[in-house]
């Protein structure tokens, strides 16, 4: 059994710490159970189950740290792991940025564990995929997709008395449907803590309607257009920006948050005042653990408020150097929106482009966060509030910072996943003016 209860984890970690002779010792235990199923051409291609339990011991003498990981849990193996980490610590170079371990902390209980998700079996996965394949066959399309679920737990304890424990469940699903002629393609992706929210039939219906609706696309000239990004496209577009909310990189002068002349742009208005972005581990739609890798408690924190930079992440080392309080990095990302549905955003658009999904986004210039990538799986031309016809895909070169200065309207936030990292976000559909498309792509 890879998932240990809080009390079981506590007993095991205490035993491991009992073997320590180092100045400081931190022990971490993590377990994961779950499985996946993959399909293509309307048939299952691979499926697997996994179960892992691992213990990591980090021992420190002065500023020298060594670590060992094991997956055997008899007393002799546990003691050997502690000794080995101590030997490695003695051999390690001194770390000038070493920070002492945190002492005992108080955490609120998280809401990340859902028993129904933890109870998923290979049959549950197969049944969910069978519904997706059924839609695809009914619509005379070919589906390729992936479903993966996991139940995880994390526990840590250190020689200064800190103990933290969390369990989490997660299920992600994505499907691409294509027509037989290869002229139309659609996509849908979902991610939840709670399997009961996952409806693979409806998700595949949406993908199928995009596939059928995107066939025989017309080419229009690249250039600047008003766009409506669906949440799955918007989340992927902004992911690089979320990763860059770091004070050290900004202070060092190598981030879009760096200020000419030195320092960072905390407190500056960088985006449209409709933009508010924050983290909240207790958000019912996007719950996450209430502590981070170092054992620091996580709370609700604002990053961008009405377009102004409210906080940047400060590691404990950097906070000490700058004489400020440490700020843990984003635990999750929630962007506020309005009440408009996607349909209402389309209805309010005189001329524009609906983007279902973005693809292969890569950084072109980190100082402006200029990104390039492409539209994919359903791009449509909007005229006088209605979708007129599908259009061929575009390559874009755009910065999320520039994009968030050009916000016309935001819709109702939805839980969505990044199509590359599979991380979940709560993001609204967004209507943006002057989004820069630089060339056409023949890809479907």
């Amino acid at each position, binding site marked *: 059994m890879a998932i240990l209860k809080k009390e079981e984890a506590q007993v095991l970690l205490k035993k491991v710490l009992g073997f320590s002779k180092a100045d400081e010792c931190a022990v971490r235990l993590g377990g994961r159970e779950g499985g996946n199923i993959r399909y293509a051409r309307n*048939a*299952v291609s691979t499926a*697997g189950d996994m179960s892992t339990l691992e213990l990591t011991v980090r021992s420190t003498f002065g500023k020298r740290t060594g*670590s060992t990981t094991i997956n055997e849990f008899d007393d002799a193996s546990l003691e050997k792991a502690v000794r080995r*980490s101590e030997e490695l610590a003695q051999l390690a170079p001194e770390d000038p940025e070493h920070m002492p371990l945190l002492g005992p902390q108080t955490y609120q209980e998280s809401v990340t564990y859902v028993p129904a998700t933890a109870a998923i079996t290979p049959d549950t996965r197969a049944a969910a995929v069978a519904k997706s394949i059924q839609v695809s066959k009914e619509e005379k399309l070919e589906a390729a997709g992936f479903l993966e679920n996991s139940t995880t737990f994390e526990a840590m304890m250190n020689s200064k008395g800190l103990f933290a424990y969390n369990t989490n469940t997660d299920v992600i699903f994505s499907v691409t449907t294509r027509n037989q002629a290869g002229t139309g393609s659609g996509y849908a992706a979902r991610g939840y803590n709670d399997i009961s929210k996952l409806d693979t039939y409806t998700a595949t219906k949406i993908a199928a309607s995009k596939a059928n609706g995107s066939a025989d696309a017309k080419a229009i000239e690249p250039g600047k257009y008003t766009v409506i990004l669906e949440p799955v496209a918007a989340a992927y577009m902004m992911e690089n920006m979320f990763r860059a909310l770091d004070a050290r990189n900004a202070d060092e002068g190598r981030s879009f948050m760096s200020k000419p002349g030195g320092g960072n742009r905390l407190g500056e208005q960088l985006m449209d005042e409709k933009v508010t972005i924050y983290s909240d581990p207790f958000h019912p739609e996007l719950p996450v653990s209430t502590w981070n890798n170092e054992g620091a408690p996580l709370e609700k924190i604002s990053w961008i408020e009405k377009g102004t930079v409210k906080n940047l992440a400060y590691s404990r080392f950097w906070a000490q150097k700058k004489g400020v309080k440490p700020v843990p990095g984003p635990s999750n990302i929630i962007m506020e929106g309005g009440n408009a549905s996607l349909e209402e955003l389309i209805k309010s658009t005189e001329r524009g482009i609906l983007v279902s999904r973005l693809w292969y986004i890569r950084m072109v210039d980190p100082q*402006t966060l200029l990104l390039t990538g492409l539209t994919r799986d359903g791009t449509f031309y909007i005229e006088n509030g209605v979708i007129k016809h599908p259009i061929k895909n575009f*390559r874009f070169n755009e910065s999320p910072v*520039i994009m968030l200065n050009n916000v016309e309207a935001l819709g109702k936030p939805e839980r969505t996943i990044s199509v590359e990292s599979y991380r979940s976000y709560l993001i609204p559909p967004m209507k943006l003016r002057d989004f820069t498309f630089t060339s056409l792509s023949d890809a479907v």
Partner: protein
Amino acid sequence: MSFGALMVPKSLFAGNDIDPAHALVGGMDVAMKKQLADLALNAARAKGATYADVRIGRYLNQFILTREKRVQSISNTESFGVGIRVIANGSWGFAASNNVTREDIIRTAERAVAVAKANAKIMTEPVQLAPQKGYGDVSWKTPIQQNAFSVPVKDKVDLLLQVNDIALQGGANFVNSAIMGVNEQKFFASTDGSYIDQDVHRLYPFFVVTKIDKASGKFETRRSLSSPVGMGYEYLTPTADNKVAGVVTRYKNRYDILEDVKNATADVAQKIKAKSVEPGKYDLVLDPSHLWLTIHESVAHPTELDRVLGYEANYAGTSFLTLDKWRSGNFQFGSKLVNIVADKLQPGSLGAVGYDDEGVKCKEWDIIKDGILVNYQAIRDQAHIIGLKESQGCCYAQSWEDVQFQRMPNISLKPGKDPLSVDDMIRNVEKGIYIVGDGSFSIDQQRYNFQFGGQLFYEIKDGKIAGMLKDVAYQANTREFWNSCTAIADKSDYRLGGAFNDGKGQPGQANAVSHGSSTTRFNGVNVINTARKI
């Protein structure tokens, strides 16, 4: 798709942390592996498998990362276990375990058969496996001169801190440097009668130098011109005959990291002051340190047969090189100068092994011949689809616990047949850009439209290098681009570049692959200016 060459692959951290000395202690002996493998093969057959293969693998990784005067991380990991793949009732099944014991390997084989039988219930077509003769007891080892794992960690740390010191002394504001080492010790056995023992080594040293212009708030970086290689630590012993002189020194089979960081520090200062490019059409002269990535994205990925067939449609995508284009026998992928070969043989390459992960001896074959699409990359269960009687030997799994599937071999552009130096190539360019090193990269899901950046851009005016440019990226359509290829330097300029961690599949797996070429010219390519203001 492919992930950045500088990203640390997840597989590098997979496994248990170990003492570096432990990496040099031999793992389970081959006779024992053979005994255990036979137990698994027999157990699978007894449960009804018509085919089975067993991979007992020990995967060692070392990753040392530094910045400025600080060692950020030293990671040594080992992962040991067995993966068993079977065909039962016409369907594939796979199971893996980290307990490589008599009892557990039998249980794992039986689990694989049970998975195959469950999958068979919803199967549409039974697996067709290309025949493969058994090789008996054979072995292969990367021809290394010095095992990177035998070099003390302290020596590597000292080298990296010396690299950082040169950059800081030269006026850089920041520098990151790293050495990654991989050793795959893998044993393969199959019901075809093969027992293959292989010892595969890979190495990747690299750095990034950063220079800040505080007043303007701008910064520039220059990455190392090293390549990840299928070699030992000897790659880091420079020799004069492996240096390529020019506007910046580049490297063949040996790398001078101390010289390159000195050059990088000078380059990055020059880059800050460089002229921002005027967008428009240019003739591009692409160095192998840059062109490898364009080959990887626009030739290697679209010729993967599983993509062509739709198996990767939900993630990486499909391919514009559909079977009808190949069947026509006259699909002009590129100009007549373009000859692309696939292989897993080139010494020093990341793809080089003796046998692939389904027991097929490695070979070389043509993909593009005189500009025409002539073949794909296929494994045993795909060979029949393109009329092959045997696999091309490009099956790979990133570890024992992942199922093997089609991964690209080395895919390389053949050098020009006629003598042509880089200087002579540049002499004929009126308005062009010479690009060295790889940078930003993005391509669509069928591999038509791409955009690439680089590390160093030099303006070519009337046959001469006229200075450095910045904010350069080029966009093109794959077929138009390769048909605009007008000159390829001869074999004396041939070099390998590569990806240490090419990603594919769901769940994702990493693969290491090299791409060789000589400097190549492409005419009239669209260049954009990437500078923005926020």
